[in-house]
């Protein structure tokens, strides 16, 4: 800010349009905002917790929580309007927008009707099953959440299906036909079916749908040679691949050249009205308006080997196994049972040892025909009797299939191919329903659980429910994660988002410390990895490599493997994650919890860009902190509370304004001592400044270059903030501190709230300025950044500006962080002068951390 602009701002304040609101009143308002802000975050976290599966909740909970949340957010906007004396129209509009979407979701209407006629695979997930059908939505999860390869492609949505029917005037005909049908006359149904299918096959694909298909093909053309590539065009209807498999009811067309996709598309649509498919739906009580057919168009894998896999064959407990069927070439003959196939039986438990190999003589295989379609070809003599999967490929395939099973918590029926380069592709995954019919054959886990030794139970909080059996792998803070063993249970001291790297390998996660509202818990839910955080004892109670059973639904860890528990979970009547309430809450939270406004310096950090309640809350928080800093900086003369001078050994020149409970000195006293500071953050910071012994009274030798530089800077950037020159200010309450500190030419802001409520706690630290040249100043910035990063802060460095944030730690750990900041303020006072080379950065960071360490042990 230029001197002139600064002066203008300062003067503008004194233009007395309205009598200024007393600072104490404003500060109270600010605290109310913080308070409400925290209640909103807590409620959002509470709703997020419910997705973890530890709680039983019903629709009433969802309704009540949404109502409370909307009320809090509305009031928060009103609070801000009072604090900043603005109307905040944009914010209220954003609120109305989000609230409307929530109401629509609650009323059972999808508030985001996806009107796309096609969608690329990389955008698909389970939430798009209405648009993409279940088969392709599942493939979207497999690709985008689980990170497994599926053939590249896109889906023609159910919206396109409805458009197609409408365009060809079919809905009326279907409806009339069914109305006329008496429900018994098979011949009549077949007649109707023939008529509808003929009309579909002769029908016209609407122009916008064709245009979209072309656009998607063009996009694929940048990655594949479309003159060569053939497609698999496959049905993906509503309800397909769910509890009703519809297996084999709808048609897939293999080996389709790009130019003939529209034709194949019609063929697949027509298969929805085959007499068999129609009867299947009618028998299961599907209404005609529940019929919608999306169609997947994926590049046909140049398959060397293909087949099917069941992750669970319901034999007795001792014999439960994974079964793979495989043949050379494409997989269709394996799936429809018309080919001789190899059968491999593997252990379900890691490392999936092979139990039996049954290699068939395979005379023919299905391959893509040149120019389109498929054909049977003879298998070369030398390969006919060979097993078509190597043990390595069997293991890779089984690991992938088990990852899908763990995610859906259901045994899976998986179709797959290995291409000629040895890459594995998942073509389809559908749940296998296992229902143990003989109870004796399949003992309930109750008995086994009573026998088992409980390592610990009821400790910590469930972040994601589920059961996991595996070996303990303890990860220390700096451990390399690249060799994390597949199928292990991650046991670690702290939660950290860096564990997202191993979530696809880990069966379960246990931490000593951490909260369910943290980033890692969100990720665990995303990947559905059974997770319990904050157990306090996991890393000490469990030994590396021992086998345990983690029941993250009942929050208990057992020694040894209780396979009955796994089996019980796999055969539960309904998977919690598939329940309507879960899905509703999950959809609602998408309008509530994601944070899009992350960077306050971004152009998009504005009310009109708020897409969720969290965004609104975040914006208001930032705006109100800014408003308070503005008030305390430019307005301190008008503050009603008595400003007091802090008397310390170290000349900080600090004036403290106590808003509430931050000082224990009596009224009217103009000076306070450090012992009289009862504000938790300020007291800790002062302790760090003083007790660290790093203030350093020794004169620092300044070489001539930096000295000259410091002289010139004195009259330029360093004097850009005339209002705060020589005046250091802290506004405090018992838990809060807002500190503006200028020491030498370093300008530090610390804004912190530290209390017993972990979720409210945060520290914001900003450091800028300094003598010497820019290179030395950025060295210092990097040194500070390194220190703070190693102290768990999230740090951004822009040139010589350092911004560091940390939040949601316990009171004790937050105080430690304030001690570090205090020490750092002392230590870095003239640090830039000492940093004459890049190597010095690490040295000084190390020196600081060693010197501060004893202070943190208390």
């Amino acid at each position, binding site marked *: 800010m230029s001197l002139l602009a600064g002066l203008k701002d300062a003067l503008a304040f004194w233009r007395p349009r309205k009598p200024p609101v007393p600072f104490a009143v404003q500060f109270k308002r600010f605290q109310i905002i913080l308070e409400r802000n925290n209640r909103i975050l807590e409620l959002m976290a509470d709703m997020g917790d419910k997705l973890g599966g530890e709680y039983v909740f*019903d629709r009433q909970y969802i309704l009540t929580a949404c109502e409370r949340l909307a009320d809090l957010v509305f009031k928060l906007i009103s609070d801000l309007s009072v604090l900043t004396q603005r109307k905040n129209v944009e914010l209220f509009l954003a609120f109305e927008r989000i609230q409307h979407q929530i109401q629509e979701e609650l009323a059972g209407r999808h508030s985001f009707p996806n009107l796309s006629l096609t969608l690329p695979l990389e955008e698909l997930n389970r939430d798009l099953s209405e648009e993409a059908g279940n088969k392709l939505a599942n493939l979207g999860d497999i690709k985008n959440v689980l990170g497994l390869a599926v053939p590249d492609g896109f889906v023609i949505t159910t919206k396109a299906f409805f458009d197609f029917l409408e365009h060809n005037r079919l809905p009326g005909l279907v409806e009339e036909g069914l109305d006329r049908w008496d429900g018994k006359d098979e011949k009549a149904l077949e007649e109707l079916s023939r008529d509808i299918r003929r009309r579909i096959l002769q029908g016209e694909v609407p122009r916008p749908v064709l245009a979209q298909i072309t656009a998607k093909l063009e996009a694929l053309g940048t990655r594949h040679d479309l003159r060569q590539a053939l497609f698999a065009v496959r049905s993906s209807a509503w309800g397909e691949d769910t509890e009703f498999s519809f297996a084999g009811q709808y048609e897939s067309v293999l080996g389709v050249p790009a130019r003939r996709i529209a034709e194949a598309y019609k063929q697949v649509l027509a298969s929805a009205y085959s007499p068999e498919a129609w009867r299947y739906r009618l028998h299961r009580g599907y209404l005609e308006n529940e019929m919608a057919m999306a169609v997947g168009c994926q590049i046909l894998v140049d398959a060397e080997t293909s087949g099917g896999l069941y992750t669970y064959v319901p034999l007795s407990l001792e014999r439960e196994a994974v079964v793979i069927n495989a043949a050379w070439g494409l997989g269709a003959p394996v799936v429809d049972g018309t080919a001789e196939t190899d059968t491999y039986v593997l252990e379900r438990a890691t490392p999936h040892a092979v139990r039996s190999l049954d290699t068939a003589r395979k005379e023919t295989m299905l391959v893509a025909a040149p120019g389109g379609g498929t054909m049977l070809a003879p298998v070369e003599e030398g390969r006919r009797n060979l097993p078509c999967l190597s043990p390595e490929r069997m293991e890779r395939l089984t690991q992938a299939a088990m990852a899908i099973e763990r995610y859906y918590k259901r045994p899976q029926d998986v179709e797959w191919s290995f291409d000629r380069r040895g890459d594995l592709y998942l073509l389809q995954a559908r749940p296998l329903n296992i229902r143990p019919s003989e109870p004796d054959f399949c003992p309930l886990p109750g008995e086994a659980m009573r026998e088992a030794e409980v390592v610990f139970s009821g400790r910590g909080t469930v972040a994601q429910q589920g059961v996991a059996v595996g070996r303990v792998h303890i990860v220390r803070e700096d451990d390399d994660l690249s060799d994390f063993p597949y199928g292990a249970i991650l046991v670690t001291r702290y939660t950290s988002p860096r564990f997202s790297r191993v979530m696809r390998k880990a069966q379960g996660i246990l931490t000593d410390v951490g909260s369910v509202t943290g980033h890692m818990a969100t990720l665990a839910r995303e990947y559905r990895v059974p997770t319990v955080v904050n157990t306090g004892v996991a890393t000490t109670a469990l030994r590396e490599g021992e086998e345990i059973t983690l029941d993250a639904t009942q929050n208990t860890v057992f020694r040894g493997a209780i396979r009955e528990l796994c089996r019980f979970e796999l055969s539960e009547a309904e998977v919690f994650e598939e329940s309507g309430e879960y899905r509703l809450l999950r959809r609602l939270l998408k309008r509530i919890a994601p944070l899009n406004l992350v960077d306050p310096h971004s152009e998009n950090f504005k009310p009109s860009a708020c897409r969720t309640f969290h965004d609104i809350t975040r914006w208001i928080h930032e705006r109100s902190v800014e408003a308070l800093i503005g008030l305390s900086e430019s307005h301190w003369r008008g503050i009603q509370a008595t400003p007091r001078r802090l008397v310390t050994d170290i000349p900080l020149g600090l004036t403290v304004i106590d808003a509430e409970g931050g000082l224990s000195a009596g009224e009217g006293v103009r000076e306070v001592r450090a012992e009289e500071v009862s504000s938790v953050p300020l007291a800790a910071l002062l302790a760090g400044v003083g007790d660290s012994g790093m203030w350093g009274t020794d004169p620092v030798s300044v070489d001539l270059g930096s000295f000259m530089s410091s002289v010139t800077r004195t009259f330029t950037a360093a004097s850009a903030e005339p209002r705060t020159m020589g005046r250091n200010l802290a506004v405090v309450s018992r838990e809060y501190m807002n500190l503006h500190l200028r020491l030498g030419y370093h300008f530090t802001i610390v804004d912190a709230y530290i209390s017993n409520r972990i979720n409210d706690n945060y520290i914001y630290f900003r450091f800028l300025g300094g003598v010497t040249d820019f290179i030395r100043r950025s060295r210092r910035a990097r040194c500070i950044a390194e220190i703070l990063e190693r102290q768990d802060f999230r740090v951004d460095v822009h040139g010589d500006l350092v911004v560091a944030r940390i939040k949601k730690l316990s009171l004790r750990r937050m105080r430690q962080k304030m001690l570090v900041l205090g020490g750092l303020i002392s230590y870095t006072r003239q640090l830039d002068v000492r940093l004459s080379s890049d190597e010095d950065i690490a040295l000084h960071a190390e020196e600081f951390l060693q010197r501060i360490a004893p202070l943190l042990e208390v």
Partner: protein
Amino acid sequence: MNGPADTAPRKRILVLDDEPIVCKRLKPAFQKAGYEVEAFTDSVQAMARVEQEHFDAVITDLKMEGVDGMHFLTRVKEVSPDTAVVVITGFATLETAKESFRKGAFDFVAKPFKLSDILDTVRRVLGGESRG
């Protein structure tokens, strides 16, 4: 969790809540812990079962569409005084809690609740283990 020898028959639990999700979640959780469980979303059917069979514990919602859980609680206690009743409700007030206890409820659990909490409650009333 080393319990007594498996000699006695499994303890029986009846769950009544008009929200299917509650039944769907409680039933497997109690089965897993070794209880025999029947779950109902319809109070008439549930009452009929209570009159036919003896249950060691009944878990019932208080506010249901068209049914008064308090009435159900009273009837259960009339038919089978030694059946322990645990009340679960999303509209927990001190008044309803007091009334439930007066009518003989063993415990009162506010929704939403943790699965482990309701399991503990039932273990407490049925004497620690699912087999007596």
